[in-house]
């Protein structure tokens, strides 16, 4: 009998067990849920998953770098609030549909700014990213509530809410944006100096310093990237809803971290990739969508996802003993 590990696909699956899981749940729901295996629903899954997926791309960068960002849900809400509110500013009243452009630009800039603040504080004060972004999670959410006056904003310009229904060829525009972001971040992480240094800093910070890598700027760039991606996710989410609520994105950081950890990225840093994260995002997306189609109450999805997260952690510990290690705080 030929050695099974010589089959390339199997070898690849052993290195990326999450994709095996994706395959299994995909086949399971295709067989057991009506309407699951249709072009429309599959596109739907990608669109639904893209909200968490975009942030998960940034979280992969930040976690490989040895940090964590808990403030993404709040950043998403702040960006969404700006994107919807700026359109109705008096300054842009005569711009017609062009008023969307400055609104989206300002929203994305706000996201980058929030990331830059987090990154700068982590860099200059040396306080652990967990504490810095925990504070920011409360603070930015407070900013959202103060800015919006605890009200929801509604998009008056219908071109804005129509955007999410647009298609490029056969593909929904939101899915295309997500795909482009996946490819771009994958390229950044695997083909550029910044990506290589991100791994180096997360793997062994002291060695990275000794090798002449400037640790601080790399961390700050990654925080700015996750801020940008969270803001982008917020803008796209608000186009889907045609509104921005102050509670938008609550608990998203938990979903995002779950997706990234499922994808095999290590909390200690230095290990992980975008392909794994994409698997984690799709696994969550397929589970939510499939169970929804099978009319499983949303409550059970919470229990199942929590259990899967812990099970993956357990299996990972059993089979990758060398990669053992907790979060260094």
């Amino acid at each position, binding site marked *: 009998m030929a050695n099974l590990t010589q089959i390339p696909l199997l070898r690849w699956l052993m290195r990326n067990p999450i994709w095996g899981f994706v395959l299994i749940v995909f086949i399971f729901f295709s067989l057991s849920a009506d309407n699951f295996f249709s072009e429309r629903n599959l596109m739907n899954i990608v669109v639904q998953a893209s909200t968490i997926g975009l942030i998960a791309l940034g979280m992969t960068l930040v976690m490989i770098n040895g940090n964590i960002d808990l403030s993404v849900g709040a950043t998403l809400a702040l960006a969404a609030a700006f994107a919807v509110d700026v359109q109705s500013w008096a300054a842009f009243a005569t711009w017609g549909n062009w008023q969307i452009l400055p609104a989206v630009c300002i929203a994305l800039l706000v996201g980058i700014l929030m990331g830059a603040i987090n990154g700068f504080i982590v860099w200059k004060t*040396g*306080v652990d990213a967990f504490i810095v972004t925990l504070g920011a999670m409360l603070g930015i959410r*407070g900013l959202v*509530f*103060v800015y919006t006056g605890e009200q929801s904003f509604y998009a008056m310009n219908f071109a804005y809410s129509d955007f999410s229904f647009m298609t490029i060829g056969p593909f929904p525009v939101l899915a295309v944006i997500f795909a482009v972001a996946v490819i771009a971040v994958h390229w950044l992480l695997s083909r550029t100096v910044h990506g290589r240094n991100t791994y180096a800093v997360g793997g062994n910070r002291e060695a990275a310093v000794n090798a002449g890598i400037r640790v*601080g700027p790399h961390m700050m760039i990654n925080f700015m990237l996750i801020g940008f991606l969270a803001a982008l996710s917020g803008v796209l989410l608000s186009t889907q809803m045609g509104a921005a609520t102050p509670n938008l994105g609550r608990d998203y950081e938990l979903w995002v971290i779950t997706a990234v*950890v499922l994808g095999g990225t290590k909390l200690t840093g230095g290990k992980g990739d975008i392909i794994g994260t994409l698997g984690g995002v799709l696994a969550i997306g397929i589970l939510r969508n499939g169970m929804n189609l099978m009319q499983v109450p949303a409550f059970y999805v919470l229990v199942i*996802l*929590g259990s899967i997260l812990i099970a993956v952690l357990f299996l990972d510990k059993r089979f990758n003993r060398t990669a053992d290690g*907790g979060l260094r705080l």
Partner: protein
Amino acid sequence: MLLTRLKAGGPAIAKQGILVAFIVFMIAFSLMSDRFLSADNIMSVFRQSAIIGVMAIGVTIVVIGGNLDLSVGSMLSFATVLVVDLHDKIGPELAIPVMIMATLCLGAINGFLIGILRLNSLIVTLGMLSAIQGLVLIYSGGQNVDIADQSGTWFAIFGRGAIFGVATPIIIFLGLALIFHVIMTTMPFGRRVHAVGGNPTASVFSGIPRSRVVFMTYLISALCVAIAAIILGSRVMGSQNNVGQGYELQVLAAVILGGTSLLGGSGSILRTVLGVLMLAFIQNGLILMGQPYYTQWLVTWAVIIVAVWLDVAAKRGRLFSPIA
């Protein structure tokens, strides 16, 4: 200049940074609002902080042991819904012990996964946060629960009652803090928790049963959540099924503000109490000054980062991180 002094003669002051900040805040707020320092107001701040305070006691012990507990918020929802729902079904004298046992079971699951199986505490309690929230929703069917006869039950004493003119929540909070402070500072168990959190490997070589100690810290955390749930259920006489959502962060913020190191091995219950009270007084002071409610979160953001920054800076003797 300031830092050379901090380094040379100031470890004592640096250690008490939270106390200094607390006093500064109190003076500032009392200058800006005359009602701030009135006995009524101080009492009400203490009473409001009791629930977060009781939970923070348990989380402090977990963190000293070198782990995290993010599941306390969901666990609070679970315990409160359970005790309120069972109150009308089997009576308070049975509902309370049943709820405590159920909550301890959740704590035991945490303790088993983290203490015995040695899984990463951040991820495990993150998973538990979502799983327990799901459990609550399944149990309650998405409905909120409440107690029918709100004035005729002795259950009211925990949240609404008073003993010698002091509200019961305050007595429970400060009493628990004192008990666990004594346990953590004078009893062998407290030393073991410090040892396990400070250096797990060394603690094993010293013959400390590391797994069992970590397991116990999670049981204590669950017990504290159960007590907080009794106060909350009794005060509100009902419960939304996501009542504890977000509590884990406020609790963790208070613990960090109290100077407990997330690395484990150092921290103190009494300073956590200071952290809890400081957050509560900031919230109260800002509201008295007429600021919007959520301004407190902005201030909390700044306070946490500055407090931890000064702590870190005093330890390394430099204000800014040396990394390039």
